[in-house]
């Protein structure tokens, strides 16, 4: 009896030993900042000095206050653009490429590497280099001039109407390899018997894809969708590198993370930190990410099919 108890204690000790570092990381880098943000968002601030408790007033300022509400909803719209475009272009292409690669088309091994290489590039290097290509006299506009398409030349990063889409496309260029790889391995893992049986029954390639493959790779679609939601709500680096922390031009590329950064920390040239509203914004980012991730997981899980 006693020996059994000691063994059990030892087992618990080792479990605790292995999970404590992980839990500590989660607590220090995720939970603690979340609670600190919640705490700070409920106070009035005079620059870096915490003043009195004001309840949810910072949230009210964020949603209804002059300037902040305009900036916040503008940024949310841009995050939505990121999500929609990433889902429609990056993930659809990823699925297409992944499926094609899994069919072992000619040169698939080479394509696999070509698609995945940009994922390995540094986000800063990608942003910087594409920033150069997209300058008014950069590679893209020069190419357009070369093929006598000068009328298509644009200020790709300077025109507020297209700047966000330009940055999203650069990001898609960089990331398409990731869903490609996930979908490819997911299709590869499917039991070959099902597909062979469908062939024998006379199903064509489209039918096989939509009726057999797609329902069976829903878990992979769930993973990619959740990652896209999280990525779209947390867009920061690509915008920061290509359009600056102000989401230039005229906040047209602003996202909630660049807005949060600017609000909470201020900017070098034009504004000072507003910690209360910035903290409220960070809480909203947490909540949005949490809500949409959970909703999409539970919705997509219902679509999963068991073999």
């Amino acid at each position, binding site marked *: 009896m006693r020996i059994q108890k000691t063994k059990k204690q030892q087992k618990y000790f080792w479990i605790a030993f292995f999970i404590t570092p992980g839990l500590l990381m989660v607590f220090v880098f995720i939970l603690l900042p979340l609670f600190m943000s919640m705490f700070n968002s409920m106070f009035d601030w*005079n*620059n*870096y*000095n915490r003043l009195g408790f004001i309840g949810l007033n910072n949230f009210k300022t964020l949603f209804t206050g*002059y*300037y902040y509400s305009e900036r916040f909803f503008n940024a949310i719209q841009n995050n939505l653009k990121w999500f929609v475009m990433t889902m429609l272009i990056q993930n659809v292409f990823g699925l297409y490429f992944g499926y094609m690669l899994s069919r072992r088309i000619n040169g698939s091994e080479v394509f696999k590497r070509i698609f995945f290489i940009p994922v390995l590039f540094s986000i800063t290097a990608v942003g910087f280099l594409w920033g150069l290509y*997209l*300058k*008014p006299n950069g590679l893209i*506009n020069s190419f357009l001039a070369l093929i006598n398409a000068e009328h298509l*030349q*644009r*200020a*790709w*990063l*300077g*025109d*507020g109407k297209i700047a966000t889409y330009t940055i999203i496309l650069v990001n898609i260029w960089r990331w398409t390899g990731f869903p490609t790889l996930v979908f490819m391995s997911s299709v590869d893992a499917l039991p070959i018997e099902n597909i062979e049986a469908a062939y024998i029954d006379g199903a064509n390639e489209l039918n096989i894809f939509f009726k057999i493959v797609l329902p069976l790779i829903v878990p992979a679609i769930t993973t990619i969708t959740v990652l896209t939601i999280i990525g779209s709500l947390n867009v920061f680096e690509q915008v920061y590198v290509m359009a*600056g*922390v*102000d989401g*230039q*031009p*005229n*906040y047209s590329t602003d996202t909630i993370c660049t807005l949060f950064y600017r609000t909470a*920390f*201020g900017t*070098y*040239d*034009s*504004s*000072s*930190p*507003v910690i209360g509203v910035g903290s409220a914004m960070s809480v909203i980012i947490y909540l949005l990410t949490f809500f949409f991730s959970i909703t999409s997981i539970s919705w997509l899980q219902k679509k999963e099919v068991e073999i």
Partner: protein
Amino acid sequence: MKKIISTFLALVIVFTSCCVVLADEVTTIEFWTWRPEDVTFYDEMIARFEEANPDVKVNQTAINNTEYFTVLAAAMANNAGPDVMQMKCYGQLQTYIDSNYLAPLEEYIPELADFSENARRGAASNVDGVLYGVPAWSQAMLCYYNKSIYEELGLSVPDTWDAFINNLAKCKEANYDALANGTKEGWCVEFLFGGSCLGFTGANDFYDKVVKGETTFEDPAFVTAVEKMGSLTEYMPKIYEGVAYTDMQSSFANEIAAHFIGGTYEYANFLNLNPDINLGVFAVPNIDGEPGYVATYSDMNFSMNSSTKNEDASIKFLKFLASKEFGQAAVEKLANVSIVPGVDAGSVPFIAEILELLKNSCPYIFAVGFRYEQPTGSSLFQSAGQSYMVGEITAEELCKKVQEGIATYYEPFQK
């Protein structure tokens, strides 16, 4: 043998104690700047200071300007800030004063009384007028021009707005970018306006009135000034809305563009990029018959951490930074317009030219007067200015946006 060992040990102890005593006498202070470009200059200055003050050692840390205030704020909040630091002026200085991060300096550095009123304004709290910084240098926004291109095209420095536009047109005809400026970044719109059109507003008179709330940014004179800025788009580079700050700099420095409207801080960089460039400066003329105005503002202070543990050493270093010796070196080595009293700024021909232009100057309006609260006048003007320059809104709408934004917190506008 024992005797030798004990004598040796005694010597070691005495030597170590001496070292400890000597080391104790040297105080090390931390000094932060946002100018990695000027590390060598500060190293040289620190060496001079340490030679005259062997009891103080200064450790310099340079942080990129885009991250400087984020890093500094975090350090100050955690009581890990530097002893002495570069600090902005006006509203951004006020942020740190309000947070009790900075020490008032006048009682320690009586020399501050000798600084000009304008210089003191940039280093003072807007609540009680107490000085929290040693004013370092000011900047002026004006127009650079390429003298070689002017000679080639037979142009002369303009004395009216029409003559200025005529010069731009001639440069454009000769296939130069008449004006290097672009609008991809909002702050470039603000300095384009400050360096070319403030005279149309009525300059100092307008500034005094608008600060007191006796007029607004919807004043017809201000609207006219904005419209004049809009008229410059014709002479900007093709697809100017995509032209970023660094593109502007390289285009002017590489003699692709004939004019560059910007700050005096560009001078050293232009020469670095192209040592052979033959450039000159002028104040853009606005109202016929009146000299052009350059917009000016204090650009930087040196401040002391209010919780420094090395107050005496920090004060010594700040006194050095407030000295004529340091001011003179800043003029000669950085081509900065030092505002330290008694500095012979005219010893550098470019600075002498700037000083001449500064005789007809007015405040760089949003930076000096409207950066104390959110949304700052600068951020409002910058964003609306970008929309205006690409034709999305009118000059009247720009002015309305700026006025309404500032009026949300600025009491003189709420009457």
